């Protein structure tokens, strides 16, 4: 437990001092919204289109962070240090999942209001939407941490992580889109079928946290 905390605090401190990932992700989100504004030629969005724009933007912003998640470990010998340290390898997994979860949550604190300001006529769905986004973040973080470790230790590096991760995330994105769409519907949020999608997302999160927990030791081993 304390190992998780130490690694997590280390990661957050590095991010706070260097500001490598978060500002880039935020900027990426805002720019992508602007591109969607012209790509779709719409000044306001609702329903499935709004859900799609928001989720695709967050997904690709998350890929930026996921790609960078293990750069320090790879370049500065962090993987070896973790292997040498008398701690469980899964501590690294949970620390990275939490770090990624925090990055994404902070990103959405920026991205959601900007999205609402740019495109939404009615922002009353934002609060329940924040809950959906947290479930999404957890799924992104759990799968992202495992695949990113593999990517960091491969020759293809930055290419491999998104390649493997995108198809793996499709069920999560399906569920997130299904849950987001009624919340951003024209004429105020509705809760039709949101429960089923929330359950699906929770199942996805649980499954991949467990798979990550069970297999991470083997990803780390050398």
């Amino acid at each position, binding site marked *: 437990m304390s190992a998780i905390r130490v690694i997590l605090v280390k990661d957050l401190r590095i991010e706070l001092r260097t500001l490598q990932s978060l500002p880039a992700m935020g900027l990426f989100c805002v720019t992508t919204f602007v591109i969607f504004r012209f790509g779709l030629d719409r000044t306001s969005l609702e329903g499935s289109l709004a859900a799609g724009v928001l989720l695709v933007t967050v997904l690709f912003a998350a890929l930026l962070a996921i790609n960078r998640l293990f750069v320090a470990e790879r370049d500065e010998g962090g993987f070896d240090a973790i292997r040498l340290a008398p701690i469980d390898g899964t501590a690294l997994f949970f620390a990275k999942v939490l770090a990624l979860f925090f990055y994404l949550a902070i990103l959405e604190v920026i991205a959601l209001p900007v999205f609402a300001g740019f495109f939404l006529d009615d922002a009353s769905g934002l609060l329940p939407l924040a809950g959906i986004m947290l479930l999404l973040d957890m799924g992104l973080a759990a799968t992202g941490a495992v695949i990113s470790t*593999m990517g960091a230790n491969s020759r293809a590096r930055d290419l491999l992580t998104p*390649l493997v991760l995108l*198809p793996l995330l499709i069920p999560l994105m*399906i569920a997130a889109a*299904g849950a987001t769409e009624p919340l951003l519907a024209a004429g105020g949020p509705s809760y039709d079928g949101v429960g089923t999608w929330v359950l699906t997302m929770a199942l996805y999160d649980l499954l991949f946290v467990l798979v990550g927990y069970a297999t991470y030791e083997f*990803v780390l081993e050398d």
Partner: protein
Amino acid sequence: MSINMPSLRVMAFATVAVLGLAFALVFFYAPNDADQGFIQKIFYVHVPIAICALIGFIVAAFHSIRHLRTGDPIHDVRSYVSIHMGVIFGTAALLTGSIWARAAWGKWWVWEEPTLVSFLIVFLLYATYYPLRYSIEDRERQARYASVFAITAGAFVPLNFIAVRLAESLVHPRVFATADGGLPPEMMLTFFVSLAGMALLFVTLVRFELAAKMTSAQISRLRRALDSEAPAASASRIAPAVPADQTA
């Protein structure tokens, strides 16, 4: 595979016999579909191929679990071969599905058919197995990562089918959903014979590929032993290493 399995020759003949019987049933015994007519017969090829591919993926996940638990590379080779054959069968399933969609609904691709869409997503995920595997140079790490991938993807398969099924409003009648109750007995029989034939084909091909891998590993070992001065040609980069004590 264990010693109790029938020889490859027996398996090959059994596959030809059962598949031949299946095609005879498809063309001469099973009635034409009242709605779709003759084209519906592609169902007897498409669905068994897809089922075999999915089972191959799940089997690969179990081999991978055993590989990680025991560290024995033979399980990694089996997992690799299962996924490899699953991807080949998956390609065939997508092609036949596309042909069926064109004939039945007039379009090469139909997003309203949840099983086909789920299958495409699963296929896309397993297609990344090769770039993942061959971007890792260290053999042991390659095998471990491939196993972690196979387990993750194996857990992904059922979840993906749930998610896609929920996302579709089920506007199209689905043939397979009626396979339990709605299908006439002639069609049921034909379908199960086809399924048995395809399953035999899958297992036989897997065993042939395993045997080929074992043999080529043995040959390169013998070559090295014969000519120990000059380094032998390095083993194939597009196939997992086979352990020294595990030859066919």
